[in-house]
């Protein structure tokens, strides 16, 4: 069997970047890079095998590193910067305080990239990341006064979906703010939050102010969107025009951060539930993955190989991924799990990694 993306994993952790590979049937840690540096998000652009690492240096700000040889050598490139006149909703000057998420443009635009940041700005680059421009149409959207911070001080743009059929159709998720869609390459944006539930607002059905922790599209049916929201799990079959609550609290499938969707089957997805926002630990302190194979009609608890003793593991929004039948996720307590049978059974590859922020097959 030849190598596939399911044989290569990149992890962004609090203490550096880590790569795993499956060699002769077993997973091995093959590389550590950017040691002891906090990686908020690590991403391989499969179009050109460029590896990106978004760094959070704390005192020294956020930085962006790029590697064209899978982490052997690195170059620091300019970080997305808010223009001088960009203001936060409270009137303060907007400056980039976190690098959340990178997404590639369409196949026909090889040098285009998108970047999601805190305090909620979407940036794009048309030169492969050498320079970044704030998307002003979204930044100046009249609804921005309804954006605010959740776990962090300000809103974060944590999800970006470029439609594989039409790269001018872009869907983003702002946590907290909601879902927005552009049909014209980012020149204008419309909210797409009907059916969502903002359980922390006086009006849970408000048009804006929703909290999609992470949102993905089904690769096989790009109009099918999924989101692990602060207030449940939601699915849309019409590109976000209408959302349906598919949570099932009795299985734990309700609160969480991460979600992964099957590459072939638009009815299948996985989440890693946690206790509600004020606790943020594993449900019943037993780590479980929940899988639906019927579009959220029902959820199955998957626990074989996962710790069922006291578990405080939490899985951040970008720390679960799937490739074919293989899933991987990393936790805040440095446990790293893999399943090669769609989540039926799990194997822990390490109990001793740093807190894991992102996991990607590449």
């Amino acid at each position, binding site marked *: 069997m030849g190598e596939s993306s399911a044989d290569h994993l990149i992890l962004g952790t609090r203490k550096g970047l880590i790569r795993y590979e499956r060699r002769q049937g077993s997973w091995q840690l093959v590389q550590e890079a950017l040691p002891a540096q906090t990686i908020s998000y690590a991403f391989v652009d499969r179009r050109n095998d460029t590896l990106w690492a978004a760094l959070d*240096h*704390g*005192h*020294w*700000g956020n*930085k962006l590193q790029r590697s064209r040889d899978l982490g052997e050598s690195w170059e*620091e490139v300019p970080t997305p910067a808010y223009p001088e006149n960009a203001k936060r909703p409270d009137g303060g000057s907007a*400056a*980039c305080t976190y690098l959340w998420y990178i997404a590639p443009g369409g196949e026909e635009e090889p040098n285009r990239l998108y970047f999601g940041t805190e305090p909620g700005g979407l940036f794009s680059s048309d030169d492969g990341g050498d320079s970044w421009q704030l998307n002003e149409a979204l930044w100046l959207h009249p609804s921005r006064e309804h954006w605010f911070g959740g776990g962090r001080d300000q809103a974060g743009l944590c999800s970006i979906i470029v439609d594989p059929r039409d790269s001018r159709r872009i869907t983003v998720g702002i946590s907290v703010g909601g879902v927005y869609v552009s049909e014209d390459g980012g020149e204008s944006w419309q909210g797409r939050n009907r059916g969502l539930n903002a359980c922390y607002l006086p009006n849970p059905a408000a048009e804006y102010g929703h909290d999609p922790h992470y949102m993905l599209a089904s690769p096989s049916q790009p109009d099918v969107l999924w989101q692990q929201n602060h207030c449940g799990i939601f699915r849309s079959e019409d590109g976000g025009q209408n959302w349906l609550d598919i949570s099932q609290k009795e299985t734990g499938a309700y609160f969480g951060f991460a979600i992964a969707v099957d590459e072939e089957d638009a009815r299948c997805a996985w989440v890693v539930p946690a206790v509600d926002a004020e606790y943020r630990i594993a449900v019943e302190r037993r780590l479980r993955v929940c899988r639906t194979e019927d579009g959220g009609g029902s959820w199955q608890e998957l626990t074989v190989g996962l710790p069922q003793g006291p578990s405080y593991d939490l899985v951040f929004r970008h720390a679960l991924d799937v490739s074919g039948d293989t899933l991987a996720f990393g936790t805040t307590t440095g446990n790293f799990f893999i399943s090669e049978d769609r989540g039926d059974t799990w194997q822990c590859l390490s109990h001793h990694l740093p807190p894991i922020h992102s996991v990607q097959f590449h």
Partner: protein
Amino acid sequence: MIQLRFTSHLEKFFPGLGELRLEARDVAALIRQADERFPGLAAYVVNEHGALRPHVNVFIGDERIHDRQGLTDALQDGDVVTILQALSGGMMRK
């Protein structure tokens, strides 16, 4: 001539960063000068609008600067300027 000193933390990102001797009339200009010697250095100390990052301190002698937004604190020949992170370890180079 202004003497500019850095916390050792910044050497992780800028190997060879030592004490610099520069000409500048205020702290903002001093950091710009330092950035010319070590390209990218300023972005570690100030944000994209030139404001001091929240947990970074700049001292002129033993006094913290007053203008964290514009870094307009004036400098005089012979001043010693020190850039430190607020807490969390890191030592001055001996």
